[in-house]
C-alpha cells in the first residue's frame, strides 16, 4: 500500500520513469498486431449478431418442472407442430437451469400468439409468464444505421471540442485515432470470442467512446501543462515532457480505470452470473473490454502519437536539436572535467548550471565564466522561462525531473 503511494510519488517527480513515449515503436507494433488480429477476426469470423439485428422472435419461458435441458426437445416439437414457422427450424436453448429460450424467424402477430400458446402448453406454464420479443427484419438495420450515425456525429463533435479545449488539432487527431483503435479492438474481441452482438453491446461500444476520450483528455491536459512554454527553453523535448505527463498521470489513470471498472464488474457479475443473458451482461461486457483498452490506448497510443505529430513541427524539431546539442555539450564537458562530473551531479550550484548551460540567458550572464555554451543565442524568447532548479539532477539524464512548483513560474501564468 504505502509502496504503491511511494511509486506514485516517484513517478510524479520523475525519479522513476517509464519510457512510454520513447518506446512508442514497440507499442505501435503491439497495437498494429492486435488490430490486424481484430480486423482479421471481424472479416473472417464475422460478428455474431443477435436476433435484434437479424429479425425474429425470441421467446423466453420458465420451466415449471424438470430441467430446462430436458424440456428442449418437447418445446421444439411443440413449436414446429404449430406450423407457423414453415420450413424454418426454431433454435431452442436453455438459459440457466430453469429457462428455455426459443428463437424463430420473424412471425406475424397471430403466429406469435400461436407459438406462445404451444410453448405454454408444452411447459405447463401460463402464457403470461412467457416473455417474448419480436423484432422486425429491418429493425436491426435501423439500429445499426443509427449507431453508425451516432458514431460519426460524435467523432466530429468530439474533434471540435478537443480542438476548442486544447487549441491543438494534433491532440484531436491523436485522441481520435486512439478512440478508433479502442473500438476496433473491442469489436475484434467480440468477433474473436464470438460474443453475441446485441443492441446493448452497441450502447456499450458507444459509451466506450466517451470513456476513452475522457481518459485521453485527462492525460493530454497534463501534457499541455508540462509543455506550455517548452519551446522557449531547451531542457527537454516535447516527447520527454509528454512522457513525464504520462508518468505523472499514471497513478490517476490506473485509479480511474479501476474505479470505472469496479461498477462495471459489478454489473457483469450480476448480469452474467445471476440473471443469465440480457441487457446488463451485454452492456457490461462491452464496457469492461472497452475501458481496459481505452486506458491502454490513452497511455500507449494517444500520447506517443501526439508526440510523433508534434515532433514534426519545425519549432519542436528545433527544440530537439537544441536539447541534443546542449546535452552533447554537457556530456563533453563532464567528460572533459573528468572526475569533476560526480561533483557536479551532487548538487552544487555550479555543477547544476554546468549541466544545463543554455537554459536561461540570465543565468548564462550571471555565470558567464564558462564558455562551453554552444548557443547563447538559443535563449531566445522569455528569458525567465524555465528557471533552474537547485535540486540535484544528473546532467546526462534523458528524463526530465520535476522541480518544486514554488521555484517555477508563478501560478498566475499557468494558462
Amino acid at each position: 500500500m504505502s509502496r504503491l503511494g511511494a511509486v506514485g510519488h516517484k513517478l510524479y517527480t520523475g525519479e522513476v520513469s517509464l519510457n512510454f513515449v520513447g518506446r512508442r515503436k514497440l507499442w505501435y507494433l503491439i497495437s498494429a498486431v492486435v488490430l490486424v488480429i481484430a480486423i482479421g477476426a471481424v472479416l473472417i469470423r464475422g460478428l455474431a449478431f443477435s436476433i435484434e439485428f437479424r429479425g425474429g422472435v425470441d421467446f423466453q419461458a420458465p420451466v415449471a418442472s424438470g430441467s430446462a435441458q430436458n424440456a428442449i426437445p418437447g418445446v421444439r416439437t411443440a413449436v414446429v407442430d404449430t406450423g407457423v414457422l414453415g420450413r424454418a427450424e426454431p433454435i431452442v436453448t436453455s438459459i440457466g437451469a430453469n429457462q428455455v429460450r426459443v428463437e424463430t424467424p420473424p412471425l406475424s402477430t397471430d403466429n406469435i400468439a400461436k407459438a406462445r400458446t404451444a410453448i405454454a402448453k408444452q411447459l405447463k406454464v401460463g402464457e403470461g409468464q412467457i416473455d417474448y420479443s419480436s423484432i422486425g427484419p429491418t429493425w436491426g438495420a435501423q439500429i445499426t444505421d443509427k449507431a453508425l450515425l451516432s458514431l460519426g456525429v460524435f467523432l466530429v463533435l468530439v474533434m471540435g471540442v478537443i480542438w476548442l479545449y486544447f487549441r491543438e488539432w494534433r491532440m484531436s487527431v491523436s485522441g481520435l485515432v486512439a478512440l478508433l483503435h479502442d473500438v476496433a479492438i473491442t469489436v475484434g474481441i467480440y468477433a474473436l470470442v464470438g460474443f453475441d452482438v446485441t443492441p446493448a453491446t452497441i450502447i456499450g461500444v458507444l459509451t466506450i467512446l466517451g470513456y476513452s476520450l475522457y481518459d485521453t483528455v485527462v492525460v493530454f491536459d497534463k501534457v499541455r501543462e508540462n509543455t506550455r512554454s517548452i519551446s522557449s527553453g531547451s531542457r527537454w523535448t516535447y516527447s520527454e515532457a509528454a512522457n513525464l505527463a504520462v508518468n505523472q498521470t499514471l497513478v490517476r489513470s490506473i485509479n480511474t480505470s479501476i474505479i470505472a471498472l469496479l461498477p462495471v464488474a459489478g454489473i457483469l457479475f450480476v448480469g452474467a452470473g445471476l440473471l443469465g443473458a440480457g441487457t446488463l451482461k451485454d452492456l457490461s461486457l462491452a464496457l469492461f473490454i472497452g475501458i481496459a483498452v481505452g486506458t491502454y490506448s490513452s497511455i500507449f497510443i494517444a500520447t506517443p502519437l501526439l508526440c510523433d505529430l508534434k515532433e514534426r513541427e519545425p519549432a519542436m524539431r528545433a527544440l530537439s536539436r537544441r536539447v541534443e546539442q546542449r546535452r552533447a555539450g554537457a556530456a563533453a564537458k563532464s567528460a572533459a572535467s573528468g572526475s569533476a562530473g560526480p561533483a557536479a551531479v551532487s548538487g552544487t550550484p555550479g555543477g547544476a548550471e554546468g549541466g544545463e548551460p543554455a537554459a536561461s540567458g540570465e543565468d548564462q550572464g550571471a555565470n558567464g565564466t564558462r564558455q562551453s555554451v554552444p548557443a547563447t543565442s538559443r535563449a531566445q524568447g522569455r528569458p525567465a522561462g524555465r528557471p533552474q532548479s537547485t535540486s540535484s539532477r544528473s546532467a546526462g539524464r534523458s528524463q526530465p525531473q520535476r522541480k518544486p512548483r514554488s521555484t517555477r513560474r508563478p501560478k498566475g501564468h499557468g494558462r
Partner: protein
Amino acid sequence: MATKRPHPWRSLAVLLVALLVGVGLMATLGAWTPRLGLDLRGGTSITLTARPSAGQGAITPEKLAEAVEIIRNRVGAIAEAEVTTQGNDHIVVEVPGVGQDQIVRLVGSTAELRFRQVLAAAPVAAPPQPKPTPSKSPATSKATPKPTVGPSVKPSNKATKSPAPRAPGRAVPQAFRRNAPTPTPTPTPKATVPAPKATTPTVDNGKVRVSTTGASPEQMAALQKFKCADYTPGKDNFKQALFTCDREGTTKFVLGPAIVLGSEIADASAQLPQNQLAWQVGLRLKGAGKSKFAQASTQMYQLQQPLSQFAIVLDGKVVSYPVIQGPITDGQASITGNFSQQEATDLANTLKYGALPLRFETSQVSAVSPTLGSDQLTGGLVAGAIGLALVVLYSFFYYRGLGLVVVLSLAAAGALVYASVVLLGKSAGFTLTLAGIAGLIVAIGITADSFVVYFERLRDEVRDGRSLRTAVETGWVRARRTILAADSVSLLAAVVLYALSVGNVRGFAYALGLTTLIDIIIVFVFTKPLVTLLARTRFFGEGHRFSGLDPTRLGVPRERLAPRTATRASTRASSPKGA
C-alpha cells in the same frame, strides 16, 4: 485564478436547500419512487417505425403526431397505454401487462385504409378445394354474401338520413368470415343490383375511376400465379391496381386503384339497428370522399359482382368487401353482415382509426412478464450495490480518510440522482429502464473519477511544496478544468446517443447525461467545499497517517503540509529529493 475566497458552508447550504426542495417536491407530488420502464415492471411495448411509401409524401413531425393521436385513441379504450414518439420516425406504444396480443394486432395494423373496387377475386389455391376455373370463381364462390342479413330491412338509422335508395352501403361477404361461407351463388339481396351489368362502359368522370370490365386477362393470369406472400407494402401504390389477399389469406384479389382513402372517413361506429339481431357498421365520409364515394357507388351498384364490391383494404390486406347495394350520395353508409358486436366494433375501429397519415411497420414487440421484470430490477439494484461497495472499498483502501469524502459525495450524488429521476418521471415522463440503471451504475465510475482527478491533483500540489490549505485551492483550480473537460466529453457522448438513438440506448444515454450533470454539481458544491473544510481539521490538515494525505507518503516534510504549526516556512531547502 484562485483568488476567490472559498465559502464552503455556503455551497453546502445551497446543496442542502436543493435537496430539500427536491424532497419537498416529491412530497407534494406524492411521488417517492421512480417510474419504472416496462422491462422492469412487466408489460408489452411495441415500436412502430414510419416507412416512406409511394404517394404519401415525407414523414413529418406533424404527421407523426397525428398518427400518435390516432393510435392513442385506438388503444386508449383498451388499456392504460402510453403512446409516445421517439426520434423522427418511431412511435412507441407501451402497455402494462403481458399477453395483449389484441393490442399488438390493433397497433400493428394501424396503417393506411383504402377503399378499392374489387376487379377479381379467387380463393387461394390452398389445401381444401382446388377451384378449377378461375374465371368463374371470382364471381360466384367468392362473393358469398350472407343472405340472412342482406335482404332484411336495411333501413337502420342510416337509412332515414340517406335520401337516395333505401339503403346505404351494402353488405358483406365475409367481413370477418366468422360463419362458414356457405356459398350461395347469386346473392342479389337488393332487387335492383345486378341487372344492368356492363351497361356503361366508360364511366370515368372526374377522379373516380370505376372499372366496368373487371380484371384484364393479364391481371387474371397474374392473379393465378399470385401468392399471398408476394404482397410487398413497398409496391402498394394507391393509384394503381393491387394484388393482395384478405387478412386470413384465404382469398386473393385484384383490386382497382383506391377510390376513397382512409383519411376521408369522418367516423365509423358499430350499431345495432332496432328490430335487428345483427350488428352493423355505420360509416360517415367527409370532404372529397363523400362525392367520390357517391360517384363510385352510383356506378358500381349497377355492376355484376365482383365489380360491385368495395374492398376495404387495411395495410394492403382486405378486411372486408361488401357489395354496394345502391348509390350512396350523402356520405352515410352502413356495412351490414353477420357481425357480432365485437366484429362490428373492430371493423368500426379499423375504419375510424386505421386512417393513419403514415405507413408504419411493427419494428419491435417485446413482452416482459412481471416476474422477469422484477428479477431484472433486483439484478440491477444488486449490481449497483456491488459496484458502489467496490468503489467505496477501493477509495478507502487507496485514499484512506479521503475515502470519506468519496462516500459522502457519492451519497449526495445518489440523493440528487434519485430525486431527479423521481421528479423527471413525474414531470417529463422519464422512465427508468434496465439500460437506464446500467447508465446510473456506470456513472458511479465517472463520478468517482472526478474525485480521483481532484485528489491526485491535491497530492501533486502538496508534493510541489504547497501547504495543504493552499493546495486545496490551487489544486482545485486545475482539477476543475480537467473535470469539466472530461465531463463535457461524457455529456457530449450522452447527448449524441440520446438524440440519435432509439430504444434502450436512449434510457442509457439519458441516465448517463443526467448523472454527469449531477457529478459536476456535486463536485463543485459538495466535494470541493467538503475538502476545504476537512483541510482545516487536524486529522487531515496535519496529514494523519490515515488521512490520505500523509506527508511521508507524499514525500514532503510534515511541517510543510501545515505551515501553521511549523516554524520553518522556507520551501527552498526542502525539495522532495533534497540531499
